[in-house]
């Protein structure tokens, strides 16, 4: 299986590569459109600030490529947020795959949310074998509200989308690569998607 992790200079992608390798696969880091198009699975990572990440996606023309991919695509953390319509962070437009706008957590909770929170309302093959209320690891200041494309929720002062799905596009707010055995299972499920 050919797995490509999109490399557009956004944050720590080494960890995702290692997580794939721990499952017995290998992954390549690439920003080459042809390589990405030919992959069986595409992982779209992201750590950092939304508007500067979008700027990089525009410069590298990945902005046009990603929404047109037809194989399973998994956005992680900021990657998921960039797949939404807009983000309040840096007031930027997104890739418009998920029909929801990303907003900042209120001042009633500590921001960023850092640590292990629970996921529930699981409704996707991505969570096969994962039980309700398992803990996953998150680090984020912005979130996607609950919407039609929500396939898992979590709670931090507000119920929000822990994962989204539309057709072949999946997005997770948490870091499966850092979420212990649960995260490994979710990554494996992504690789096993038909």
């Amino acid at each position, binding site marked *: 299986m050919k797995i490509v992790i999109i490399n557009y200079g956004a*944050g*720590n992608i*080494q*960890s995702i590569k*290692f*997580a794939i*390798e*721990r499952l017995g696969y290998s992954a390549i880091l690439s920003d080459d459109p042809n390589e990405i198009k030919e992959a069986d699975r595409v992982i779209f990572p992201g*750590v*950092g*600030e939304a508007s500067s990440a979008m700027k990089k996606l525009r410069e590298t023309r990945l902005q046009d490529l990603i929404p047109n991919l037809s194989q399973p695509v998994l956005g992680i953390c900021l990657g998921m947020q960039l797949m939404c319509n807009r983000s309040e962070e840096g007031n930027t437009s997104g890739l418009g795959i998920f029909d929801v706008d990303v907003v900042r957590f209120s*001042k009633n909770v*500590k*921001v*960023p*949310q*850092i*640590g*292990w*929170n*629970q996921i529930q309302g699981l409704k996707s093959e991505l969570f096969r074998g994962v039980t309700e209320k398992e*803990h996953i*690891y998150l*680090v*984020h*200041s912005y979130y996607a509200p609950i919407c039609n494309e929500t396939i898992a929720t979590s*709670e*931090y002062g507000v119920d929000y989308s822990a994962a989204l799905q539309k057709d072949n596009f999946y997005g997770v707010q948490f*870091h499966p*690569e*850092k*979420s*212990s*055995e649960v*995260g*490994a299972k979710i990554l494996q499920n992504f690789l096993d998607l038909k």
Partner: protein
Amino acid sequence: MLAKRIIPCLDIKDGRTVKGVNFVDLRDAGDPVELAEIYSKEGADELVFLDISATEQKRKTLADLVYHVAEKINIPFTVGGGISSVEDVDILLQNGADKVSINSSAVKNPQLINDLVAKFGSQCIVVAIDAKQVDGEWIVHLVGGKVPTDRKLFEWAKEVEERGAGEILFTSMDRDGTKDGFADEALAKLSTELNIPIIASGGAGKVEHFADTFLKGKADAALAASVFHFKEIAIGDLKSKLRESNIPVRI
């Protein structure tokens, strides 16, 4: 519900794990990668690697260690110790570190916090603050608590937050190595006055200390070293007991 985090800290010198009592008199407690794997399996929520070596090869040794840890473990980890530039941080993140912590370099050059946040984002910048009480006032100290500064803990912590740090790791130098419990009063004040997560450090000796620092100290996470390294407290037992006290933990 967001769980309270338990974080073993591994002090690293020349690629090996060490832990001092009151930061002097170091003892060897094993291989860092192996220890990291053990802690990860035992249920640690996160790990901190604090490099205290001062050799010229330090940068490369640490980057190699980070790479090997990231290869093996599937929980987040923070790396600190002598980090003083954007380049230092870049190398560590590229090798697989999730977060970095800065301490003295932030006190000497507070703008570094802004620079790191602008380049890497708040989520991976932890500012460590070592402080102890001098005439009833919490004063920030450097060099493992040996050198006092003119900064007061609460003012400095507020500034650190305003400059964009994602988290504060507060070590009470009065408590560190004593096993008398965390500095819960100061922690509660930090947690109330600031709106970013606070990690409690210094003073862990028994299970009750962890419960206290979450309940009375309002800490978001608790860090300890020797009680874990020398198996005085098992992480699994600790978490079960915290759960009995209705403290949310990941089991």
